[in-house]
């Protein structure tokens, strides 16, 4: 082969090699990821807004929430918005959808739970739907890689609850989720913004570990059944100032009432100065202590 032609060929091969090696700063997220997170409790009390930067509107709505709402026939199969991925107790199955010409990833899908729809993260640059479009239970999510981190942006979520005690989120909430893989560990870092109910972004984390046992990509079917909640046209709720559970966290654990009701101020170290004068540590644990029955 002529020398210049050989040089051209060699340079072309070099270009292809460099493009291939430099353009693939991504990781494989596929597999079954079981929850490996030691966070406590999932805040089981009926009135517990600690750690959430809620505003007054959210607080009032939350205080009006009666747990019996979840027993309403119309709500039993409602499920959670996509941010429940970072709150709920289950593992996740992740798989890519790929086109078979160039092998590009069209989307990553995070499988469903019994009360959370699949999250499909579109990687093909498609725009989010119109403001007037329906909000599906799974929201609408697009994604891109930042180095080895998959960054997903979710809009069009439905209104829901940040905690099962009815701390509200609106249908204007959005979420950025980062999937950070370190070895066989996956850290999900979610930032929820809600112009209606939050005064600043709410940050959540959850940790998973890759496991050989396959997780199901779908949840079980849901069939509503009468559970004794209020009849047609009635909505269980508490009138203003009438929530009977407001003092529970204070009574059980000594948490000052102001802190129980949440808010941005309570998230930062400075708030401990206020707490120090108000908090009396209970002599010993009497409720939800963990471990075997004592």
């Amino acid at each position, binding site marked *: 082969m002529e020398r210049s032609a050989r040089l051209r060929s060699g340079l072309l091969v070099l270009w292809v090699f460099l493009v291939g090696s430099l353009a693939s700063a991504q990781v494989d997220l596929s597999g079954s990821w079981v929850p490996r997170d030691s966070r406590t409790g999932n805040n089981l009390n009926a009135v517990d807004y600690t750690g959430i930067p809620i505003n007054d509107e959210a607080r009032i709505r939350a205080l009006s929430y009666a747990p019996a709402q979840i027993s309403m026939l119309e709500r039993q199969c409602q499920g959670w918005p996509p941010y429940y991925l970072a709150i709920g107790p289950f593992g996740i199955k992740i798989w890519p959808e790929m086109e078979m010409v160039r092998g590009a990833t069209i989307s990553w899908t995070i499988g469903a739970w019994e009360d959370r729809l699949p999250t499909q993260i579109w990687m093909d640059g498609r725009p989010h739907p119109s403001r007037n479009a329906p909000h599906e239970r799974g929201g609408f999510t697009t994604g891109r890689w930042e180095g080895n981190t998959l960054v997903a942006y979710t809009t069009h979520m439905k209104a829901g609850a940040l905690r099962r005690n009815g701390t509200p989120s609106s249908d204007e909430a959005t979420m950025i989720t980062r999937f950070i893989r370190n070895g066989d560990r996956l850290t999900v870092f979610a930032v929820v913004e809600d112009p209606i109910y939050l005064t600043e972004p709410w940050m959540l984390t959850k940790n998973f570990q890759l496991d050989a046992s396959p997780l199901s990509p779908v949840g079980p079917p849901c069939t509503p059944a009468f559970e004794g909640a209020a009849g047609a046209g009635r909505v269980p709720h508490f009138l203003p100032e009438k929530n009977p559970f407001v003092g529970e966290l204070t009574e059980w654990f000594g948490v000052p009432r102001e802190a129980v009701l949440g808010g941005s101020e309570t998230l930062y170290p400075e708030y401990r100065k206020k707490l120090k004068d108000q908090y009396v540590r209970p002599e010993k*644990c009497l409720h939800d202590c963990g471990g075997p029955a004592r």
Partner: protein
Amino acid sequence: MTPRHLLGATLIMLAVLVPPAVAEGQGRGRGGPPPGSEPRLSPRQIAPADLTGYWVSVVTEEWRYRMLTPAKGDYQGLQLSAEARKIADSWDPAADEAAGHQCKSYGAPAIMRLPGRIHIVWQDDTTLRLVADAGTQTRLFRFGLPQPAGPRTWQGASAAQWETLGGGRGAAPSPAPGASLRVVTLNMRGGYLRKNGVPYSEDAVLTEYFTVAPLPSNGQALIVTTVLQDPRFFPQPYVVSSVFKKQPDASGWDPTPCSTTW
């Protein structure tokens, strides 16, 4: 296009895109340069993320276990061995105070979970220094050097490296932009994972991942994922992530001494 011009175009592309990858290879000691050639790049020089600065904890999870000292015997959600539960159930802060163990709940496995501020700087090109105002604790993350032997301390001895994961076709692994800092800490004194006496032993191995992520409105978050392996007290590894927000300066910096009760 002549081969000469094609060569020129190729060199332009190489000059723009390749130096970070080559520098990482040198910094990780891969195939080290022959004596007398260019010096290897330091961990500081190849850092794929900037961890330096002031960071404030944002307590959105396990609020009452972190912002308050819980009651004795409150370890809900933690899987503890029987021995660990016995220790937790007999927590005596006054005894800790008398024994000079005020900082027992400020050790490396716990310090990142306490509300407070941290300040991270490069002490030198191979050492990151992290100072926490809660308990005025200092941690040193050393890159690539053997850990010094010596007495056990609350903060132990930490070995750091930038995480790598995979690589392109035919390329050597290198820290991608935004990669985490992996820190493994040994040689710790046994301490408290929570302020109410939930223990970890001196046999514990602590692995942490420090990851920087942008936040909306030009902010930055630092996510610290803690993996504590301590089979004596925890049948399963203890895993949590703690979140910090970057501050522009030292506002709110509030060094406070260790406390057994608060």
